[in-house]
């Protein structure tokens, strides 16, 4: 028999005052802070300078890319070094749809995401045969193959790439504002999609697989199916973000669009912020953007510093900044975990303090079910 989380939650009413709690004050604060920040940002076009808007498009694009990589690696266990394939596919889909097929460029962005999602299926047929480090390099090979195929395609502008002309139909101000709002939707949407997905049955399965793959398999979780769903979702959203980024840059070149640097950025952000924590990409994007901004006149040193910081984090603090904060005070900003509590019903004292992983460290007074 399949037991849904709801069944388990219903069980709290019977026996020994055991309750399963997911929503906490901290979680509610986290979500409302995100929504408030989004609402404030949405007013940005009416009072901020165009350069500020452009900077935010970059930040929100990076946040979206990093959130998807976090979902892939932190929850799906798939460390891909080839996500630039989908950035590039998204960018070129935007070009073809908007310029060659006459689709409205802003509508073409989500459509480009669908193209990338569709393209990720045959890719999965190859790379899902590989595991761990070989999966990582395998995805990289795919990305290089797609890049070389585009590089040899005259219709797509070969090595020179092409400029996006379709946005010329819009006035410059309208274009900037629409691009920003689209970026806001895609960036915040990426975080929300990850949180919502992790709260579903599939999310529970993914976290089980991450913690113990063999155990999860033994419990009847279809690991390949779970991974495939995450893979396609991440590819599609990454492709949509790629289209968004090039909607803002206006010129698509294969070497830039398919550059492994996209994936390097995703990795650095997630590693700095915290792998496997939906809040990690938010913290990581902030740190990454500030660091990069400080170092932008230093040429190659920017990447040397960012790479070194990410390496140091991966060795010394593998849970990233959010993991370090979690150690000081375990607060879960996005409610994706469930905790088992024993106490009189309705008593939520100490709410917001959480064990670091699942039932690993129950709060004081709580006992594990027998």
């Amino acid at each position, binding site marked *: 028999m399949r037991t849904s989380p709801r069944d388990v939650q219903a069980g709290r009413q019977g026996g020994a005052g055991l309750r399963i709690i997911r929503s906490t004050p901290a979680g509610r604060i986290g979500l409302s802070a995100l929504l408030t920040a989004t609402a404030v940002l949405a007013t940005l076009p009416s009072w901020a300078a165009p350069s500020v808007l452009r900077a935010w498009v970059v930040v929100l694009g990076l946040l979206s890319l990093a959130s998807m990589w976090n979902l892939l690696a932190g929850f799906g*266990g798939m460390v891909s070094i080839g996500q630039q394939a989908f950035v590039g596919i998204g960018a070129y889909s935007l070009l073809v749809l908007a310029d060659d097929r006459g689709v409205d460029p802003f509508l073409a962005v989500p459509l480009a995401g669908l193209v990338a999602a569709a393209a990720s299926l045959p890719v999965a*047929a190859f790379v899902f045969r590989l595991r761990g480090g070989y999966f990582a390099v395998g995805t*990289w090979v*795919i990305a290089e193959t797609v890049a*070389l195929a585009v590089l040899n395609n005259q219709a797509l502008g070969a090595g020179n790439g092409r400029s996006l002309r379709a946005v010329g139909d819009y006035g410059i101000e309208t274009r900037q504002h629409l691009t920003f709002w689209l970026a806001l939707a895609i960036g915040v949407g990426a975080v929300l999609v990850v949180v919502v997905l992790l709260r579903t049955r599939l999310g529970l399965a993914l976290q089980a697989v991450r913690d113990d793959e063999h155990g999860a398999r033994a419990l009847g979780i279809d690991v390949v199916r779970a991974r495939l769903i995450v893979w396609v979702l991440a590819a599609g959203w990454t492709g949509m973000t790629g289209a968004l980024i090039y909607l803002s840059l206006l010129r698509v070149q294969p070497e830039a669009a398919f550059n*492994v640097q996209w994936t390097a950025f995703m990795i650095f952000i997630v590693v700095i912020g915290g792998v496997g924590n939906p809040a990690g990409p938010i913290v990581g994007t902030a740190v990454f953007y500030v660091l990069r901004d400080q170092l932008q006149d230093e040429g190659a040193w920017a990447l040397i510093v960012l*790479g070194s910081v990410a*390496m140091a984090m991966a*060795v010394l603090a593998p849970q990233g900044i959010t993991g370090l904060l979690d150690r000081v005070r375990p607060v879960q900003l996005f409610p994706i975990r469930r905790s088992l509590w024993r106490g009189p019903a309705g008593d939520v004292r100490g709410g917001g303090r959480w064990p670091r992983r699942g039932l690993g460290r129950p709060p004081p007074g709580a006992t594990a079910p027998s």
Partner: protein
Amino acid sequence: MTWVNAVTQGILLGGLYALFATGLSISFGVMRLVNLAHGDLAVLAAFVSWSIVDRLGVGPFATLALVVPALGLGGYLLQRGVLDFVVSADPLRGILVTFGLAVVLQNLLLEHYSANAKGLDAGGLETASFRLTDQLAVGWLPLLTLGVAVAVLGGLSAFLRWTRTGRAFRAVADDLRTARLMGIDTRHVFGLAMALALATVALGGVFLGIRTTFSPGAGPGLLLVAFEAVIIGGLGSLWGTLVGAMVIGVAQTVGAQIEPGWSILLGHLVFLAVLAVRPQGLFGRVGRT
């Protein structure tokens, strides 16, 4: 005849690629670590060799006496000092750390040597060749490279088979915990394996530098070629790696013969075809992926 020529040159090119692939094969076999900085370390070796040639005025082959031990030592220190802390814990962290290392190395080289391509001058050997037939010429350098690759693989096989340390390597690769229980210093073995991996890739880097020009961004391309050779040959098969390297070499030279832009593309496509049809590789044992 042009096709025969392309295939011949491809087989010889496979010798160079085998030098890159061997180290990747060792580090995965022993540590279960895919070193994403592998290609960049080869490029580093080429640049170090270039600097020595520049300072001391010696030939590039003489620099091998310095470059190979230096990278070997560096590999031991890298493993004991950094990678040991991540390898056993979680494969994800090993990938992240070596990827970070790759980016850092690439940009340090870019900062120090600029983006300009450099080459190593071996006094005419790089262009010298002899004729087999009227239309088929074989270069001395590619032949020498292939000879070195065969010697390295042969030496490595003998080392793994007949020496005490080689036996420890195989034991660690087969079953880390039991090897530790039997009193093998697994950390030392890991260090030695990384030293060997980097020493062979240093050899490859210098030969690459003599054969063609190189720039700081060349690393990832070499990593991918080495990786494809290992997978095509089959994990855990050293001589399979040589065959895999030759398959990639031939695919690239034949691809270049069809259309210059297709050289590397055809290499990737052949790799993907092998992955689709025979994921365990040509000489790999079934069930080991």
